[in-house]
């Protein structure tokens, strides 16, 4: 088949859903107008461990408008079947209202349902819960560590790291402490649930409509086809909506028990208790090198927090194994079960935490050896993946650094720490490598071409703000030979052809490839119809010689000979053509596939106050083909903002006396605001990676945040001469 002309893909289009978003018409979970809906408010525990000894609901129920209060005392019937289609972790998920046990501070212990939100909120404050509290443990640094869950968090070794460290010219022995972070999407999690007989419909904030559908079917013990999950718009998530949390079950349970549709929105405070977080880490890194800067050994000994009922894991091993050509490596990951809720993957999970450690350690080594930090990294560039001996599908990290160094003005830098001043400000610059996996999942799509020459394409995928609506429209438009205006892409409905969760940066690759396949099939169908139709000007033409452009099929190289989709369908009395296609990654790839980034940062540190301000940042990315450049730039800049937060501001603080999170609000848990953000620049290397995907893309959404925090930390060192091995880097640490 003839390759289609590329018109939409690669063009810097504005978001196709932009108008809905700037007029307030985009419907997020809590915005749907459901007839007869009533309001639910969760009551959560005020202890971290122990038993509920009583729940007094009399005052709450005496409030006008209150329809009911539900807790474990009502013994609500829930099935909790096993569910494989879930981002659950080894252990057993939290069961809602099934017993009197409290496992963490903020655990839902009851729900109040009322006709108005005001009544439900007030009544919830009147529910009196008494406890028999036990001593709780929430401090990572004091809890006993144990091996992580197989197969993801097992020790790893190659060569003999101890021996190599012993004989290394230069050795570093470093200890790091990384704070817990919360995703804090601006939209709080919300669910509207409605039962029609034994059929359940939920409007939910979820990054995985199929996963939520499966979980609700399993929890309520009903057939999968009885559950429909809708999530057309998501107000950010960054990983927090990758599994169906207890409040989703509570909304559906309340709707069933009360017999009305129920809307349940978590408060911002509740967002800190039950929708996951990036776990805190204690991380020890040892590093051995030759005098010329060739790494000989790296050891990683670390532990991170998890709940007592689930063994959380995240991808914190890969970078230590594949980022640099180190012959001797050992990794010993451990988890510390605590009286906390289960963490969940937050943007760049695992990679972000390990990159901070490895990339600031590389900077320390560079200073110790007197080698430029970029040069040190280039000296350790592997020719193949050192952990699998596979060739890289593409790895253009050298180019990222070359392009970045020139654009950032790296060579002008005086490498000596504390060498540059601007009044009271100490100025420093730093670099770091970013790298993230290329995850790929099975996906399907459906496309319909209507007699009016417009098409509707759909897949049960998601748009958390990443731009899925737009980028899929671009892929579909080119494959169908239509203008973007004539293509509508729909998503966020479990009744659509299945797609993976929107996490791990896999959507563009997986769903995009499925959309390409589907639309290719549909176009070929139309071409076949034309070339076999005696009345068509294309009759008898080799189908491989036909292309479609602007809704018109014509002979390649002879635009005059052809006809439009509309003419073709009308003449053949077809109201539409349709196709269903898919993408399935090969079971075992022959290649090692990752996206790469070179991150550059310039900071100013107030010499007297320790205050750190980011002055500018530049990211250069090897992310494969860029489908939607305008949106890809927004992603990259957003990743830098997220990384600035992790580097300098974000820190969930727990009072270990009772397991309470003391800064569970946006006034005390600091995230970057507009005044924290200078001009940020992103550059994507031109190119594509067809070994990674049929549409040439790698991964992007996580990659853009991975190297940000270490680049800032390295710049802070350059500015001040102070090496902070902690996140966030606070003014206190610099005084």
């Amino acid at each position, binding site marked *: 088949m003839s390759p289609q002309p590329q018109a939409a893909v690669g063009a810097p289009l504005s978001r196709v859903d932009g108008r809905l*978003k700037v007029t307030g018409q985009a419907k997020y979970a809590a915005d749907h107008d459901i007839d007869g809906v009533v309001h639910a408010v969760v009551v959560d525990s005020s202890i971290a461990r122990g038993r509920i000894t009583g729940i007094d609901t009399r005052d709450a129920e005496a409030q006008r408008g209150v329809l009911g209060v539900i807790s474990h005392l009502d013994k609500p019937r829930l099935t909790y079947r096993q569910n494989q289609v879930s981002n659950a972790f080894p252990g057993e998920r939290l069961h809602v209202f099934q017993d009197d046990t409290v496992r963490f501070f903020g655990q839902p212990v009851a729900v109040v349902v009322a006709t108005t939100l005001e009544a439900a909120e007030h009544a919830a404050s009147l529910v009196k819960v008494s406890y028999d509290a036990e001593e709780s443990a929430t401090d990572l640094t004091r809890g006993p560590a144990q091996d992580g869950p197989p197969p993801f968090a097992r020790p790893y070794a190659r060569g003999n790291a101890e021996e190599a460290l012993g004989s290394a010219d230069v050795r570093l022995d470093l200890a790091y402490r990384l704070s817990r972070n919360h995703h804090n999407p601006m939209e709080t999690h919300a669910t509207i649930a409605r039962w029609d007989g034994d059929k359940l419909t939920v409007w939910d904030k979820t990054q995985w409509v199929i996963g939520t559908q499966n979980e609700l079917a399993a929890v309520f013990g009903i057939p999968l086809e009885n559950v429909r999950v809708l999530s057309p718009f*998501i107000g950010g998530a960054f990983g927090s909506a990758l599994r169906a949390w207890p409040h989703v079950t509570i909304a559906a349970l309340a709707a069933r028990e009360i017999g009305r549709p129920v809307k349940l929105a978590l408060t911002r405070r509740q967002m800190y208790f039950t929708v996951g977080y990036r776990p805190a880490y204690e991380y020890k890194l040892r590093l051995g090198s030759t005098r010329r800067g060739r790494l000989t050994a790296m050891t990683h000994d670390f532990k991170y927090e998890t709940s007592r009922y689930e063994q959380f894991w995240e991808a914190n091993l890969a970078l230590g194994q594949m980022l640099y050509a180190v012959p001797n490596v050992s990794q010993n990951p451990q988890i510390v079960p605590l009286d906390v809720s289960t963490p969940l993957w937050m943007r760049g999970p695992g990679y972000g935490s390990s990159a901070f450690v490895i990339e600031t350690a590389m900077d320390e080594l560079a200073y110790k050896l007197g080698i430029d930090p970029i040069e040190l990294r280039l000296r350790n560039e592997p020719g193949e993946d050192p952990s699998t001996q596979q060739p890289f599908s593409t790895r253009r990290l050298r180019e990222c650094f070359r392009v970045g160094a020139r654009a950032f003005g790296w060579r002008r830098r005086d490498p000596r720490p504390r060498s540059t001043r601007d009044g009271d400000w100490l100025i420093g610059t730093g670099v770091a490598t970013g790298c993230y996996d290329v995850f790929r999942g099975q996906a399907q799509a459906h496309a319909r071409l209507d007699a009016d020459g417009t098409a509707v394409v759909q897949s049960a995928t998601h748009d958390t703000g990443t731009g899925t609506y737009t980028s899929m429209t671009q892929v579909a438009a080119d494959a169908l030979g239509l203008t973007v205006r004539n293509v509508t892409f729909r998503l966020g409905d479990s009744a659509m052809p299945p797609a993976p969760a929107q996490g791990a940066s896999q959507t563009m690759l997986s769903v995009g490839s499925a959309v390409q396949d589907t639309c290719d099939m549909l176009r070929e169908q139309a071409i076949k119809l034309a070339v076999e139709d005696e009345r068509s000007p294309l009759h008898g033409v080799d189908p491989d010689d036909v292309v479609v452009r602007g809704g018109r099929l014509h002979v390649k190289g002879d635009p005059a000979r052809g006809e439009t989709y509309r003419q073709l369908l009308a003449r053949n009395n077809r109201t539409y053509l349709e196709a269903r296609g898919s993408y399935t990654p090969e079971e075992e790839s022959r290649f090692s596939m990752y996206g790469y980034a070179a991150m550059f940062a310039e900071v100013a540190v107030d010499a007297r106050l320790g205050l750190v301000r980011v002055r500018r940042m530049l990211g250069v990315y090897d992310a494969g083909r860029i489908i939607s450049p305008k949106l890809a730039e927004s992603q990259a800049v957003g990743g830098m903002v997220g990384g600035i937060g992790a580097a300098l501001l974000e820190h969930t603080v727990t009072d270990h006396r009772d397991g309470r999170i003391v800064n569970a609000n946006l006034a005390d848990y600091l995230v970057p605001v*507009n005044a924290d953000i200078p001009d940020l620049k992103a550059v994507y290397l031109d190119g594509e990676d067809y070994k990674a995907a049929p549409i040439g893309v790698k991964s992007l959404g996580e990659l853009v945040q991975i190297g940000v925090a270490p680049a800032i930390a390295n710049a802070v060192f350059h500015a001040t001469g102070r090496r902070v091995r902690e996140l966030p880097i606070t003014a206190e640490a610099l005084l």
Partner: protein
Amino acid sequence: MFGAGPADAAQASPSSRVTLTINGERRTITVDNRTSLLDLLREHLGLTGSKKGCNAGACGACTVLVDGRRVNSCLTLAVRLDGAEVTTIEGLAKGERLHPLQQAFIDHDAFQCGYCTSGQIMSGVGCIDEGHTGSPEEIREFMSGNICRCGAYVNIVRAVEQAAHGK
């Protein structure tokens, strides 16, 4: 444990009648005295464009204009607004014609998820009216009450600049 539902004996919260103009439309409404302007808009009037990000004045997602001034509607009790004029994101466009700042947000891709966007735009309209658009630094400062977790700040500043100066 189920209550008997709304019963005469149940404790009712006091309510009041207020007359206010919302997006040019005058309305007289009976409101529960506890109701915030944000909940009034979202839960009682079906105007869900204004968003709840914190319900505590810390995020700006709920920003609307009251008598031309930007306020956090989550912190404003509806009952206090008798006679007030409220403009929400739904009332900004003139029919099909977007407000210049709405268009600028699209042009500069000044959002990703869009959840903070209603608040950013209403706040941006206020910021422009107040004349705090002399420089990018000034815009950043005066737009810092509106959190964007997607990190669209750079483009938000460009969009406000465009709308303020026709750039």
